């Protein structure tokens, strides 16, 4: 079997093992755990503060950009005079549709290259 050991050395290893029963060790570990938890809480607090500050600073430009996008996306690509045809083609005859088609094409292209 692959476990043959020198019995004298085995005995020495057993004799060398000390019986640690002090509470200081466990107390130190618990203190360390507490310190780590406080550190994590501080990091989370800092992250939330930064996120709130970003939200406060970027709220108005983000809202303005969203407003512009809302106005620009439904703009028709081609002017169609006939009312019923314009309504029929409206889902594909818009800036949003063009962007969607471009995104799908790009995705297909990327997949073809990397697969």
């Amino acid at each position: 079997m692959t476990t043959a050991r020198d019995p004298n050395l085995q005995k020495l290893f057993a004799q060398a093992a000390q019986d640690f029963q002090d509470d200081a060790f466990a107390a130190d570990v618990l203190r360390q755990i507490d310190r780590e938890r406080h550190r994590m809480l501080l990091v989370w607090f800092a992250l939330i503060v930064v996120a709130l500050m970003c939200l406060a600073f970027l709220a108005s430009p983000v809202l303005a950009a969203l407003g512009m996008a809302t106005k620009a996306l439904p703009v028709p690509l081609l002017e169609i005079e006939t009312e019923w045809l314009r309504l029929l083609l409206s889902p594909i005859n818009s800036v949003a549709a063009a962007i969607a088609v471009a995104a799908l094409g790009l995705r297909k292209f990327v997949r073809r290259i990397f697969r």
Partner: protein
Amino acid sequence: MRYSADLLAKSPESVLVSLSQNGNRDAFAELMSRRQAWIRNLMRRCSGDPVLADDLAQQVFTQAWRSIRQLHDADRLGPWLKRMAINMWLQHRRKNDPLRGANEHDDADSPREDTTSVALDLDHALATLSPDVRLCIVLSYHERMTHREIAAFTRQPLGTIKSHIRRGTRKLQEELAAYVESEKELK
């Protein structure tokens, strides 16, 4: 919820693990008091430095507290802790010079049983081994793992492990000849 120290002391380890997984610090402290001697001794045999060993053992338990929810089988706490401890030691070794500590005790003094403790002499002798050989010897003699288990644990070929243990055993027999002789005389 707080449990009395007496109740925790009488509880089986699997219960303490479950309580620790639910964030009970007292249960975890009880687990530590049961397992600390084993992990601290293992770290001492690996590092040979009591201060470093205790520091690493503390890190092992801190990490264990952080990831105890990942322990799905509460009865596997021992192997789980052992894996964590050995990984902690290997990580520490990688961060530091791997050759540091090997063969640094070149003095030819053989250990004297009457003046030094067995642990000190054993650590002194272990320090003469290369880090890989030392780890295999510690896992074999201290942890009583089979060669196959050590190979799986350290992800090294079985032949390498056998050779490490053979070489390490021979070197330790030389270094600790005084002890070995006195054992023979006693017999």
